[in-house]
Each structure stands twice: as structure tokens, then as C-alpha cells.
């Protein structure tokens, strides 16, 4: 299953969510109505005796109105609360941010693993959080979009896992990001909170009644309503759990499989899962707010429920067996880090549990990766990770440090844009001097000795690493920064491909971050009106892929075959493929629905992969397309060398 298919699975699950949610809400409304109709029936149960107690239109409208207001209000309230992004969720769960300049060796290791993975997946580095009071092994990602994602791990995971295991669970979390699961989680947290509000209301009424002592009849009636609300609340809770496990169980398996595809190291995740099994804390969490978000975690945060009916994650041994078919069901015992710190406190060691699961599990390897598929070009592969680790290692400590702090990251981006030619550079500096502080430009010049010799692949990776620090600017600083970037790229009257891609990345990850509400409105739901735009895109890619006219044509046709057009699209002549035209087409294509965008991206990947060689320019163009269309696409490993894709 490749990257796009998994995104489609996430999309289908969102529909499933609504399929469960609407009956749940309807049922809650009906039950509350029935209870209230019984309690407040003015005619001394005459309705029941007559057999038509449920017909009471005015009451029904009122009850439905109020209950729906409460549920929707609760949902909207929660969604607004967490719309501040992943950071708010992480803090809600009890996370502490890890400073990028951390000096703690364990935190540094985590940061390095996350940075490598970010380069490999072409995502900005997420903000890292550690849940310091949690001894279990667990991790999560949260955020509404890839622009505000955070990644958190527990103290237990930080201290007890090896680097490989940590890489495994970080890869698992990144595949959630790439699969688009976060958006679904966001909705899930919001919608479920609405349902839970009913039982909260019941509890609130109980508390109010304790304090007021008015006449007994009123209290008695109110008490009945409160009991009813709490009971109905429990129904809502049960529904909530059912929805959670329906949506989430499968996706954890998918993320495990994707993580393996990513690291090509099934043992790493398997052994992290085994450590969870061997630890007395397991993957359990103690934070009060954790339960409402239990489905965003790597492992179950609660004790397994009866018959695993309400578990949000597949059973541990099943997950392990999917990765390591030879697993015997015995978890090597592991002493918690806390106990290790106290020293000699070995009483807590769990005896190895011999519960070998009886389920017969087919030893199917989780990866079904067809190298002939064109889209496999875009699948995350261990080559991405090796490539990313190589890129990261190629940066000096000074460059890495610079990418982690706002001031120096800003200067670094300027340095990447400065020309190699001394005269052009002077023009750039003069023009930028009116817009930005001198100190930044001075710093940028100092970085030149390292940045001027970088390949575009390295430059883009540095941009990726800097995005997190760049987001710490204030809105005003960002305005200056963005203007300066524009001036620096345009002062020589030409825009290079790198400058173009950089602007697209900044636009996607920072402009939307600082200027809320600047997202395009969807205007096209079908690809049919967009022929000229699509042909511009594909022609551009085709012309960058080869010089021989025949190659260009065949590459173009390979991509065009993917587009769901009724008529055919024509290859544009070379002189019409300018960045300006390209940019215009992208702006229009960005107003299409997600499905159309996927289709276009598929076609683009097909053009690039048609000759089994990915040139650096092609990879960059593809990246620019993906960023402009707001799609996540791991970078194609091309900059390494021009090795054929199929292996």
C-alpha cells in the first residue's frame, strides 16, 4: 500500500466517523426525550396508558434543540480550544517542550532522530514535547495540519528505548503525519467531546443539587433528569469508544507498516513494542487529559478492556507478529526508568507473561510495495532515510545550530539566496538593506562560506530544518523577512528554480501560519476545465527531464495517461514553459479539490519517473508542485546520484 492509498484510507475513515456519529447523536436525543417525557408528563402517565407516550411534538423539539445545542456547543468549544494547533494538545496532555538547543543527551538523541526523519519525509521539523511524568513507553503526534504539528514522547520512551527503537516509533508517528491522520484526530477529539458534554452536564446537576435545598419534589425531578443525563452520557461514552476503535485500530497497523517501509527495519518497532510488553507500566499514561485523546498515541494508554471491544489499538502481540512473525509471545521484563534511578528496586519486575495468544496469525509481511508502480517513486523508502541522514551529517555543527534559532535561521535563508557573484550580491545587499536589519545581513555574509558550496538538495534540507525556528518570529518580523526574501530573489531579475521552490515552501508553511484565513477557496471539482494548466505542469516537468525530443514526448504521454481527461492534452513547446506560466497554473490548480490534486500529482510523478531517472531539477519542480498544492510528498531521492528507480 503506498502513500496515496493510505491517505485515501484516512479519508474513508472520516466518512466512517460521520456514519457512527450521526446515529449516536440521534440515539442520545431520543433517549433523553423519552426520559424527560416520562418524568414531566403532566397527565400522570396517561400517555403511556394510551400507548402513544412518545408523541409530544413541542417537547421533542425543545429537547432535541437543547441537546443538540449542548453537543454541538461542546464540540465547537473543544475544536476552538485545540485549533491553536498541536502545541495546545501537547500542553493539555502534560507535555513539556524540548528546546532545540537542549544539552540533555537523551533529548539531543531524540531531536536528531526527528530531524533526520523530517528531512527524509520533506516535512518541517515538528515541535518536540516530552511527557515528563509518564513512565510508560508511548508517543504521539498532533496538529491540524503539517504546519503546526507537534511530536511527543513519554519519559519512559525517551529513557528506555535505543536509538533504533526511537527511530522506529518516530517513523510510525511521521507516517501518521504523511497519511493525513492528524486532521481526523482533530475532528475526533472535537466531536467526541460534544457527546461527553451530556454526562458532564449530568454531573454538574448533581453537584448543584447538593448545594441547594429547596422543596423535595423539584429536587426529586431534577435528580431523575440528572441520573438520566449521566446514564445517557455513558451511552455516549460507549459510542465514543466504539467510534474511536472503528477509526483507529486499522490505522495503527497501517502506520506500523509504513514505518517499516520507511526504515526497512521491522525489528526496531517490534522491539519497541516488546519493551512495552515487558514494562510494568506498559504504554499506559496517567495524565488526566490523556484519555480523551488516547487514539493519537502509539500504544494503548488504558488497561485492555473486556474482549478488547473498546481498545483503540490492535493487541500488542498481534502488532508484533505482523512485524516479527516468529515472536513467541514472551516479553523480556524491563525495569522502569524511575525504578532504575532509585536503584536496586527490583521487586517490581514482572514475571514474563506466558500468554501466547491463541489467534492464528498469518505471517504476511506488512509491506506490499510494487516497484513497478509509478507512484512507488514517491513512497518513503529506507533510501530516503539514509539520504536524509547523509544530508544531515553533511552540515557542520554551526549550520545545524544556525537552523535552530530564529535570528540565525533568518540569516541562513538570506545566505542561501545570496548570489555567488560579488557584484550581484552587492546589489542584493543594497536593496535588502532598506528592509531588514544590518546585523542579519552581516550574519548572512558570514554563512556564505559554507552555503555557497551547497547543492540544491542540501539547501532545501536546510530550509526544512529552519522552518521550526522561523516560526518563532513575531508577525511583524515575518513581514520584514518575507519582503526581504522576495527582494533577494528578484533583485537579479530572474527567479531560479531554487528561489521559486523556497518561496513556495515559505508560502505553505509560514504565510498561512502568520496570516490566518489566506487559504484558497476550492472552485474546481473536476479536472476537465483545467487542461491548459495541467499541460503546462506536465510539459514543464517533461522538458526538465530530458533533452531529446522523443524522450520528452514519451515522458509527457506517460503522465498524461494518468489524467482523467476525456480529450487529450498536448505537449507545449519549450519556450512556453516558463516559471511565470508554471506559477500561474499552480495558483489555479490550488483551487481544486483534494482528489483532483492527487490526480495531478500522480500524473506529475509519472512524468518524472517515466525514464527511471530522476534529475535534481525534476525533483525540485515536483517538490514545488507538491508544496503549492498543499500535498505532502516525500522528496524523491535523486540528488544522491541519478540511479535508476527500480531496484
Amino acid at each position, binding site marked *: 500500500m503506498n502513500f496515496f492509498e493510505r491517505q485515501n484510507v484516512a479519508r474513508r475513515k472520516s466518512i466512517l466517523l460521520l456514519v457512527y456519529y450521526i446515529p449516536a447523536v440521534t440515539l442520545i436525543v431520543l433517549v433523553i426525550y423519552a426520559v424527560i417525557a416520562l418524568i414531566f408528563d403532566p397527565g400522570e402517565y396517561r400517555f403511556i396508558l394510551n400507548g402513544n407516550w412518545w408523541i409530544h411534538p413541542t417537547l421533542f423539539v425543545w429537547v432535541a434543540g437543547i441537546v443538540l445545542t449542548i453537543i454541538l456547543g461542546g464540540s465547537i*468549544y473543544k475544536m*476552538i480550544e485545540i485549533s491553536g494547533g498541536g502545541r495546545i494538545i501537547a500542553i493539555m496532555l502534560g507535555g513539556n517542550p524540548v528546546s532545540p538547543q537542549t544539552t540533555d543527551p537523551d533529548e539531543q538523541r531524540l531531536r536528531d532522530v526527528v530531524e533526520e526523519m523530517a528531512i527524509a519525509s520533506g516535512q518541517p521539523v515538528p515541535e518536540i514535547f516530552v511527557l515528563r511524568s509518564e513512565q510508560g513507553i508511548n508517543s504521539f503526534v498532533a496538529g491540524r495540519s503539517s504546519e503546526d504539528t507537534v511530536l511527543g514522547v513519554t519519559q519512559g520512551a525517551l529513557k528506555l528505548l535505543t536509538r533504533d527503537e526511537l527511530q522506529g516509533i518516530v517513523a510510525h508517528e511521521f507516517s501518521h503525519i504523511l497519511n493525513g491522520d492528524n486532521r481526523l484526530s482533530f475532528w475526533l477529539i472535537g466531536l467526541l467531546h460534544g457527546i461527553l458534554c451530556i454526562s458532564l452536564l449530568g454531573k454538574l446537576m448533581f453537584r448543584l443539587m447538593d448545594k441547594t435545598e429547596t422543596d423535595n419534589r423539584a429536587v426529586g425531578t431534577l435528580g431523575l433528569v440528572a441520573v438520566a443525563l449521566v446514564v445517557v452520557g455513558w451511552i455516549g461514552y460507549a459510542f465514543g469508544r466504539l467510534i474511536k476503535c472503528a477509526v483507529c485500530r486499522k490505522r495503527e497497523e497501517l502506520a506500523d507498516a509504513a514505518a517499516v517501509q520507511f526504515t526497512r527495519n521491522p525489528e526496531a518497532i517490534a522491539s519497541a513494542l516488546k519493551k512495552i510488553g515487558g514494562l510494568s507500566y506498559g504504554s499506559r499514561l496517567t495524565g488526566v487529559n490523556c484519555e480523551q485523546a488516547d487514539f493519537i498515541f502509539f500504544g494503548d494508554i488504558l488497561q485492555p478492556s473486556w474482549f478488547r471491544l473498546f481498545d483503540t489499538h490492535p493487541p500488542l502481540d498481534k502488532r508484533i507478529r505482523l512485524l516479527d512473525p516468529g515472536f513467541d509471545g514472551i516479553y523480556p521484563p524491563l525495569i522502569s526508568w524511575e525504578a532504575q534511578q532509585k536503584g536496586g528496586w527490583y521487586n517490581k519486575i514482572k514475571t514474563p507473561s506466558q500468554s501466547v495468544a491463541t489467534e492464528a496469525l498469518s505471517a504476511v509481511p506488512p509491506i506490499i510495495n510494487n516497484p513497478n508502480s509509478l507512484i512507488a517513486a514517491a513512497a518513503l523508502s529506507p533510501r530516503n532515510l539514509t539520504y536524509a541522514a547523509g544530508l544531515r551529517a553533511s552540515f557542520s555543527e554551526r549550520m545545524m545550530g544556525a537552523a535552530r534559532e530564529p535570528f540565525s535561521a533568518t540569516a541562513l535563508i538570506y545566505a542561501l539566496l545570496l548570489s555567488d557573484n560579488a557584484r550581484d550580491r552587492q546589489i542584493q545587499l543594497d536593496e535588502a538593506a532598506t528592509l531588514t536589519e544590518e546585523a542579519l545581513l552581516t550574519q548572512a555574509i*558570514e554563512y556564505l562560506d559554507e552555503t555557497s558550496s551547497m547543492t540544491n538538495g542540501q539547501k532545501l534540507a536546510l530550509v526544512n530544518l529552519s522552518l521550526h525556528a522561523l516560526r518563532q518570529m513575531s508577525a511583524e518580523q515575518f513581514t520584514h523577512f518575507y519582503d526581504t526574501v522576495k527582494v533577494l530573489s528578484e533583485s537579479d531579475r530572474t527567479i531560479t528554480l531554487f528561489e521559486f521552490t523556497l518561496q513556495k515552501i515559505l508560502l505553505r508553511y509560514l504565510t498561512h501560519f502568520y496570516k490566518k484565513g489566506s487559504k484558497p477557496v476550492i472552485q474546481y471539482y473536476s479536472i476537465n476545465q483545467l487542461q491548459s494548466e495541467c499541460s503546462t505542469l506536465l510539459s514543464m516537468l517533461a522538458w526538465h527531464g530530458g533533452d531529446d525530443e522523443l524522450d520528452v514526448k514519451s515522458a509527457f504521454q506517460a503522465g498524461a495517461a494518468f489524467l482523467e481527461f476525456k480529450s487529450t492534452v498536448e505537449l507545449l513547446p519549450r519556450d512556453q514553459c516558463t516559471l511565470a506560466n508554471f506559477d500561474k497554473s499552480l495558483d489555479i490548480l490550488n483551487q481544486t479539490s483534494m482528489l483532483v490534486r492527487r490526480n495531478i500529482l500522480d500524473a506529475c510523478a509519472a512524468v518524472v519517473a517515466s525514464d527511471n531517472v530522476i534529475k535534481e531539477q525534476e525533483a525540485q519542480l515536483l517538490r514545488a508542485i507538491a508544496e503549492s498544492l498543499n500535498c505532502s510528498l516525500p522528496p524523491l531521492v535523486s540528488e544522491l546520484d541519478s540511479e535508476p528507480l527500480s531496484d
Partner: protein
Amino acid sequence: MILIYAFGFAFLCVGIGVALLYNRWVVLQNRFRKAFAEIEVQLKRRHDLIPNLANTARGYLKHERDLLEQLTAARTSAMAAMESVKNGIGLHDPMNTLKAAEDSLTAALGRFWVVAEAYPDLKANQTMLTLMEELTTTENRIAFARQAFNDAVMFFNTSIQTFPANVIAGMFGFHSAEFFEMENISERALPRAFDDSGTTEQAEMK
């Protein structure tokens, strides 16, 4: 009966409105607290550089023991002030203590450079040059982080001081946060002569 429902509905609306405002403030407050973390990182780097500076200079400035002691003392009090701010980012008193401490550290550094001017050997010392370079970039970073923090504080303050927010902000314990102003470090701390060596280097680069 209708009146009760209407009342209840209005109550619900107001409740949701207040909750929205409250959340907004929490977000804004977190934002400037986060911005302060960056200042903290850079101030810490500044404080860490001072002992190296003092140690390097000690050999040359045998007759200026007072000067070095003042510098070290200013650093110690600045570090203590930073520690006390950690639990009260944006509160009036700790922020002002930190300002005062950092300003006196800047002043001590300024005096140090003036004196160091008279010792050509010290000026030419390679470690000294590196440290100076480090201090300058650190101070630039502080200025940048300070700007981000002050912008965030202004945003927060505006949002709790405007009507109708100002009526309820106080009830929830939100109060205007303090800006973090410092005397312009790079202008005061580095004398011209030292600065010149830096610009010639840049000119060559250009």
C-alpha cells in the same frame, strides 16, 4: 416558560463567548512565554561567555582586578535574576529586576572593552577575538528574540485591554504583561576600535 428558555440560551451564548475569549488569552499568553524561552537561551549563552572572557583577560589585565570582579558579579546577579523570572514571565517585578541586572552587565562589559582598548596584546589575542565575535552575534540574537517577545506581549496586552475583554480578563487572572526592554547592547558594549576590525573583515568579504 419561554422567558426561562430564552434566558438559558442567552446564558449559554455568553458562556461560550467567555470560554472562547479565555482560550484565546491562554494561546496568546503561551505565545509570549514561548518567545521568552528564546531570549532565555540567548541570555544564558551570553552569561556562559563571560567567565571565558574574564579568564582570557586575567593574564593581561593584572592591575584591573576590580574590573573583572565587577564583571563576574554582574554576571552572577544577572543569572539569579533570570532564574527568578522563570516563574513570572511578563510579571512586573521579576522582569524589571532582570532588565536592571542585564543593563548592569552590559555596562560592566562596556567598561571592560574601554579598558581592554589600552592593551594591544589582549586585543590581538585570538581567543579574545573569537569571544568578541560570539558576544556580538549573541547580542544580535538577543535583540531579535526581544523584538519577537515584545511583539507577542503587545498582541496579548491589546487583546485583554480592549472592551469588552477588559471587563472579564482580570477575573480570570490575566493582567497586562511587561515588555522586555534593554539598553541597546551592541551600541554600548562594543567600542569603535573593536567594531572597526569587524567591518573591515566584512568589507573584504563583500
